[in-house]
């Protein structure tokens, strides 16, 4: 697992209170990991802080799974 993927996983485990094994690339924040709309906003903000990036709202809407988040950050992190 890449460094980015493991840091993303750690944030999700911490914020959503889920087990590490549940955080698979296909897992959807809302459908599989129990996040509501506010949790999702919080996750995006945590990713921005952790990786020092800004994720515009229209891009954030497309980040629905763990894999989406990892790919986006890999492409955009400085």
């Amino acid at each position, binding site marked *: 697992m890449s460094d980015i993927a493991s840091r993303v996983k750690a944030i999700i485990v911490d*914020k*959503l*209170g889920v087990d590490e094994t549940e955080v698979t690339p296909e897992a959807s924040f809302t459908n599989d990991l129990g996040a509501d709309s*506010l949790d999702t*906003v*919080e996750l995006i*903000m945590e990713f*921005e802080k952790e990786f020092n990036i800004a994720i515009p709202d229209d891009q954030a809407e497309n980040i629905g799974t763990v894999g989406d988040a990892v790919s986006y950050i890999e492409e955009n992190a400085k």
Partner: protein
Amino acid sequence: MEFRRVVVTGLGTINPIGNSIAEYWENLENGVGGAGMITHFDASKFKTQFACEVKNFDAKEHFDRKEVRKLDLYTQYALVAVKEAMADCDLDLESEDLTKAGVIWGSGIGGIKTFLDEVKGYANGDGTPRFSPFFIPKMISDIAAGHISMKYGFQGPNYGTVSACASSSHAIIDAMNYIRLGKADVFITGGSEASVNEAGLGGFNSMQALSTNNEEFETASRPFCKTRDGFVMGEGAGCLILEEYEHAKARGAKIYAEVVGGGMSGDAYHLTATHPEGRGAINSMNMALNDADLKPEDIDYINVHGTSTPVGDIPETKAVQTVFGEHAYKLNISSTKSMTGHLLGAAGSVEAIASILAMNNQTVPPTINHKEQDPQIDERLNLTLHKAQKREIRAALSNTFGFGGHNASVIFKSFSE
């Protein structure tokens, strides 16, 4: 119009002298104080370095990790007290009409710690707003009522009351009135507060409202005493389940007391000082007696607001004398804030509970820490000093007064069919 009757069928609390109703009563009866040096944060630079904190509270024992991040401490205390009261009243949620079950919950300030942390985070940053999406729904002082309703599925009237230190008394009065009027059959009511933090303590310190008697912190909450120098901040929650009498009777519920009257008024005088002659307090107590259809002679115990501030205690005793006349000398009066400290918006709820337990146990909890008679307070008043006193209590009145001049008085009556 004939009002429906309202009874109390469940109690719950977490406060500086008890993490359950049983522990709370034991300490009230034995005159045990809850003050200690502040442990919630480093208070070494503050004028006041002590408070009545809740003890042995571990949020992890009550909430899972994801849940707890969304709950300010004031809401955590609320949910813990409600849990005890709901178990106590033994309501069968499966068979209840939950659209007739409401929540009215008081908090003077709401999530002040959440506000402090979020604003501090912003102020320490580079100006980029990174407020948590939970900032607002964690902080607002109505959110405890929202969380309670989600937990128990109560879909009836739902809101928070805000009137500083009278907040939870207003909640109880509103709940009583809505049951009387048939707007609901059951209410979860009461209040919670959690402001023992830098902003809460610092703010009240600047107002010169708090005792700064750090040397004698254990006995600093000393209502009516000549040497009192301010209130001691408390925290926690109190919950009462109010129920329409026939509804309670039909399900064979245990009945603690009847809620028979509420009085409310405004001082229309000053931001923080009470009116010198207790104008608002007089109106509030008179309204409560009238609402309860009781005469002053019917009251045996008054749980006074009695915060231990130099300016607050005198007008309240004057007001009691104005309302009760000669009967004032036959009453038992006590300030349980001498033990719990001042729970601000939650004060009305924990003191309502103290009044009810006093009635049930025929025992008046004491005003502790009193050392010296204040010549401005009539020495013929029985302030129940030092030790609890046994007596028959047919009805008890609980007073709370809030900054802004909000006054509320609630009367509980020993239950009989």
